[in-house]
């Protein structure tokens, strides 16, 4: 018969918090957290006290008051009687619009420049180096102002389009390039118009399904199903069929010179163009370097091994190089997207009414609520940035090295 005796239970002593390695790190972490809390509460308390002493109280009530100013680019209906909150949202949407446009364009510029910089053609690769070095070494604010000033002075004024013998004319009677912006036709949806859009979106989903099917067939049977031509057909045919069957439900509204400006159509203002284009070429130069780095990071042996297996050069790029290069490209690309979003706050230089222009500019000025506005501004930008980085991380996870 054996008597199982528990090992003598070690009683917990206070000194173990320091001396026992099991607890020591927790002790120091707890102390650090406490110190941090104390410091921040002192700072916050001091802020509150000083604000109270200055007769300023933190209050967000002003967000409900009428803004009283107008905004030129309104993604959602807005007038000067709308609230400061709505003005902020208009500004936030304008920020997102320019950030989205600039991210897409910068990626295109960057990928093209990055790939071409590795070209064997001496002139092309040097031209691309010139682009990269010229654009990423000059502050983006300067590019914004240069482009804005150039467009304001090079393109004709709307009044040059007037008269029997105008000095300027519209491109194809549809698009007008003026120093205030570009006026393009606007699609007008009649009854059934949205069905065409729905069909179009469905066919894009169809393309992805087709590609998945092609891949499955390839993996299951080893048979190669064509992808490019069927995708092209799925992209165009259903939408065009729906468009004609429903009796052309989407029309175009052309811009027309009336009064001081072109009216109707869609206006892409000079300020948006300057900001969009400047952010795109500036950040594109950085992305080009990321892309080049990504491609160079894949060792030459991979290409040679794939070639030895009998893969053609297009497939080597798509199946071997690119999946590995993307792993290197995507994480810094996320930073570049965040940079674009934050750099878009330079919009005020050209009078583009983004979040910094409305909430952090006019609203802040007219209400004098500087601290509240700046805190809210930080919250907005933080939300944008975290959202972008969360979305990009999802994509990054889907392409990153999967170890089995």
């Amino acid at each position, binding site marked *: 018969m054996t008597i199982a005796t528990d090992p003598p239970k070690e009683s917990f002593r206070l000194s173990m918090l320091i001396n026992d390695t099991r607890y020591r790190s927790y002790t120091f972490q707890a102390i650090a957290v406490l110190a941090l809390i104390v410091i921040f509460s002192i700072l916050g308390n001091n802020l509150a006290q000083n604000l109270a002493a200055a*007769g300023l109280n933190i209050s967000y009530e002003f967000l409900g008051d009428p803004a*009283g100013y107008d905004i030129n680019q309104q993604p959602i209906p807005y007038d000067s009687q709308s609230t400061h909150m709505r003005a902020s949202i208009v500004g936030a949407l304008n920020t997102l619009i320019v950030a989205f446009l600039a991210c897409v364009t910068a990626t295109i510029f960057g990928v093209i420049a990055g790939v071409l910089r590795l070209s064997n053609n001496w002139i092309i690769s040097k031209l691309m180096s010139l682009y990269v070095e010229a654009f990423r070494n000059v502050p983006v604010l300067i590019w914004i102002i240069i482009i804005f000033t150039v467009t304001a002075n090079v393109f004709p004024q709307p009044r040059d389009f007037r008269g029997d013998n105008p000095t300027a004319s519209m491109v194809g009677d549809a698009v007008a390039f003026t120093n*205030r912006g570009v006026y393009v036709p606007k699609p007008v949806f009649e009854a059934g118009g949205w069905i065409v859009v729905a069909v179009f979106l469905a066919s894009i989903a169809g393309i992805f399904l087709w590609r998945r099917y092609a891949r499955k067939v390839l993996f299951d049977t080893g048979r190669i199903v064509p992808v490019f031509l069927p995708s092209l057909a799925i992209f165009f045919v259903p939408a065009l069929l729906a468009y004609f069957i429903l009796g052309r439900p989407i029309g175009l509204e052309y811009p027309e010179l009336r*009064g001081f400006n072109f009216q109707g159509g869609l206006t892409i203002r000079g300020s948006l163009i300057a900001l969009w284009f400047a952010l795109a070429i500036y950040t594109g130069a950085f992305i080009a370097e990321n892309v080049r780095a990504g491609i160079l990071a894949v060792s030459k042996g991979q290409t040679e091994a794939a070639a030895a297996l009998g893969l053609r050069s297009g497939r080597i790029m798509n199946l071997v190089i690119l999946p590995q290069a993307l792993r290197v490209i995507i994480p810094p690309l996320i930073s570049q997207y965040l940079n674009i979003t934050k750099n878009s706050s330079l919009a*005020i230089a050209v009078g583009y009414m983004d979040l910094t222009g409305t909430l952090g*500019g006019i609203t802040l000025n007219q*209400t004098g609520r500087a601290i509240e506005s700046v805190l809210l501004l930080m919250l907005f930008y933080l939300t944008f940035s975290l959202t972008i980085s969360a979305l990009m991380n999802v994509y990054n996870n889907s392409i990153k090295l999967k170890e089995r």
Partner: protein
Amino acid sequence: MKTSVFIGALTVAGLSAGVAAAGTLDDVKARDMLNCGVTTGVPGFAEPDANGEWQGFDVAVCRAVAAAVLGDSTKVQFVPTTGKTRFTALASGEIDMLARNTTWTFSRDVDLKFEFIGINYYDGQGFMVPSALGVSSAKDLDGATVCIQTGTTTELNLADFFRANNISYEPVPIETGAEAVQQYLAGACDVYTTDASALAAQRANFETPGDHVLLPEIVSKEPLGPLVRHGDNEWGDVVRWTLNALITAEELGVTSENAEELAGGTDNPEVNRLLGTEGTLGEMLGLDAEWAKRAIMTGGNYGEIFSTNIGEETPIGLARGLNAQWTDGGLIYSPPFR
């Protein structure tokens, strides 16, 4: 107040410092330098000349205050401010006074906690258009693109005017007046709107001023005046009565030329009180007896300052209009020196 240094670093930038500095007059005397906020450059009102010396109508007020307080009109540190930075600069104590064509409004006075010490220019918002447009009234501006300087009252007046007249417009907000003028001259906007005095001042600098007209509509009241922080009444009094001294001097016929002579004693007791030969007005302000004499001798009285900087003989060419003395049918009126 050590922790408030941290707070200052945390974007609140010296709000607390503004509170701590209670006696601006003593601070200015101790520093032997007046920090005066002005514009980044409006011809006639505040602009550095070819030698880098600040000149102008608003600058003259700063110099007069420096002369009254420090006895030397050159002891002024001019701090250029934009429409956006001016109030923060004043509230934080970076500048002692702001003389920057700033409109006296209820919310700035009450909500932003500033003290407007008077009005040195009665202005109103106007519109400038190229004469080639053939526009004769602001009500014809339906659909026009309008350049405005952002962060000013003009934005709000503009929105109100167009809404009240039920006409549409496209605002182009610009950060500074100079950039707005460039956009206007490039034709990126049809109309440039700001205070009528500034329009006249900017137009004077155009290559062909004759090609641009000011529309007859004045859509707002813009009483412009210097301002100081709320809650420091002694300092507010010094600035207020320096301006009043300049105005009273014009009313009483005291000029930069005859001030010295009149300070010898006159039959007019108000002139004597103004110039410090009678009574103890200077002492009440915490200054010496000759404060007002020095202020007047710096750039002259209100009328002289007006005519040398923005009057009809200058390129700016503004008529006195509302800014004439009350005795001449204008609104410029100083409380008595008594």
